[in-house]
């Protein structure tokens, strides 16, 4: 794919964003109570496409909603009827601004589980109809370790259109996928907006190098994969999980966690069935009717979480179920970091 690179400045980028928001159904990070969550926006003023990663929720709920209606039902004398729910508001054509690259990568990881065996058609439709336009981070935050995982951050094709804030103030815009290319063709850049073709991609490379150099956390993920797979029974899990309070926050805000539960809301003879997030750190997660629970204690649940991320998913689908975004560590009320935990466990072998 040989696509052109555009270059502009801050004012040009604002115009670029404004044109997108004006012409498309756009979702972008909107601040509420100091935290950015992805919502439908109508103007650039109400959102911040370059919101800080430390305060931005994952855009996963746009693809895998926190709660999705499965069905409505009604039961009367003539029997029970199941109606499928109203049309899903998330499956229309849309643009997502400000999704961090780690977050977008999370979708590529999730594609694997949603596209094996039974195919999740809603998820697929949401994926196909979404154009992700986002800028690459400028510097790594305390908990970031995306560059040390099994994907190439520089050439990542999880975002359809990549924006790079060059070190010298130049801003680059480049389509990364065919979808992105088609999008830029369908939404041509107005020459009056100050966005021009760029002959060189030198600035993008420089920005990436500076970004990559700013990482403090480095993980040898192959080592972690290999070692964790051998130490199912290590008592170390008990030590690292001791300070966990089992609050489930990490799973709810993770861009790759995908466990869910099914629950019913009953209103007399009618009701709605929902599919909503759940977490393996929840003590009831595997509790069976009758009282048997394979993971009755915290360290077993922690082990499941760590192993699912770095061993089981890798074995099954060939990817780590972690994108190194650090969201779990940022949100953890007791400051536990999965980076620290898996490294600590891996060193015990």
């Amino acid at each position: 794919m040989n696509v052109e690179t555009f270059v502009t400045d801050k004012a040009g980028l604002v115009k670029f964003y404004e044109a997108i928001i004006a012409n498309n159904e756009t979702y972008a990070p909107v601040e509420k109570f100091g935290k950015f969550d992805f919502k439908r926006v109508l103007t650039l003023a109400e959102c911040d496409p370059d919101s800080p990663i430390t305060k931005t929720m994952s855009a996963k709920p746009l693809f895998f909603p926190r709660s999705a209606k499965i069905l409505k039902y009604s039961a009367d004398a003539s029997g029970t009827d199941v109606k499928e729910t109203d049309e899903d508001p998330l499956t229309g054509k849309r643009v997502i601004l400000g999704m961090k690259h780690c977050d977008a990568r999370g979708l590529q990881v999730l594609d694997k589980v949603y596209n094996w065996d039974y195919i999740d058609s809603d998820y697929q439709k949401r994926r196909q109809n979404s154009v992700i336009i986002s800028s690459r981070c400028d510097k790594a935050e305390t908990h970031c370790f995306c560059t040390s995982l099994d994907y190439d951050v520089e050439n990542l094709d999880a975002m359809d259109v990549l924006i790079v804030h060059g070190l010298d103030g130049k801003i680059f815009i480049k389509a990364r996928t065919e979808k992105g290319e088609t999008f830029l063709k369908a939404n041509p850049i107005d020459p009056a907006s100050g966005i021009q073709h760029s002959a060189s991609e030198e600035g993008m490379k420089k920005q990436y190098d500076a970004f990559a150099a700013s990482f403090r956390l480095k993980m040898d993920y192959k080592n972690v994969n290999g070692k964790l797979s051998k130490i199912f029974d290590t008592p170390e899990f008990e030590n690292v999980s001791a300070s966990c309070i089992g609050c489930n926050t990490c799973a709810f805000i993770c861009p790759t966690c995908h466990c869910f539960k099914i629950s019913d809301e009953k209103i007399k003879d009618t009701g709605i069935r929902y599919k909503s997030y759940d977490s393996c750190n929840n003590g009831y997660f595997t509790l069976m009717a009758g009282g048997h629970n394979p993971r009755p204690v915290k360290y077993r649940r922690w082990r499941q979480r760590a192993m699912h991320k770095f061993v089981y998913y890798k074995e099954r689908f060939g990817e780590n179920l972690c994108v190194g975004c650090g969201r779990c560590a940022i949100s953890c009320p007791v400051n536990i970091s999965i980076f620290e935990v898996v490294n600590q466990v891996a060193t015990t072998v």
Partner: protein
Amino acid sequence: MEQLLVPMICRIDKMIQETPDVRTYRLKFKEEGLMEKFRWMPGQFVEFSLLGSGECTFCISSSSTRKGYFDCSIKKAGLVTADIHRLLDEGDYVGIRGPFGNWFPLDEIKGKNLLFVGGGIGLAPLRALIQYCIDNRNDYKDFTILYGARTSADLCYKDEIKEWQENPLLKVILTIDKPEEAWPTNVGVVPKILEEVVKPVIENTKVITCGPPIMIKYTIQSLKKLGFADPDIITTLEMRMQCGLGKCGRCNIGSTYVCKDGPVFTNEQLRGLPDEF
């Protein structure tokens, strides 16, 4: 995904009280023609929903060779099953999704001696296979069923067991855990009776076992002691499930999804999994 999670409506055709806390629900699809299209193999399970209360996983306890209906045997154990027992009656409607999961290795057990070892409600998945094998009796050699429960009242499928006992081609051994008055036969836990009374032939025999986790554990130990090889011991696992589609992340043991790769495993496969059940 959401469409895959929408159940088909079934009508409860018949309800049989097996034991004080186990009922068998005989189900038929409400929609015309669906029953004929619904194909399942012994060992597979369905997601059974009581709309408004929730969804639970149950194995189909009848064989597809018995046409026109399918059975689910449900023990009152948790919130949803309590609601099922409390609210459902003949003529009521429930939701069914499925069938899901793998099934007993029908080809591999062909031409072999079969030994079924069941405990309590664990006879339910075995019953599907037993019915299937009875209906294809010529494909198999010796046919032994060992079934135990805590008390004689806790034995499921009493009428059907009577039929099996009267069938000259089957050998049925029953046991209960503690002595009772007027109990005509064995007393003792299943693994003990297995070793002391059944004394099975090891050559050319496949053992299919299901029951409470603790029973499975000791039964497998006894079978090993008797000399059975791991690939000849077949069991079905119980894990908490929600979707049945390999998505919800609840039933995994290591990288194995019990709802997709199971629930039927040989002991050889089980030994390759992390010890988490």
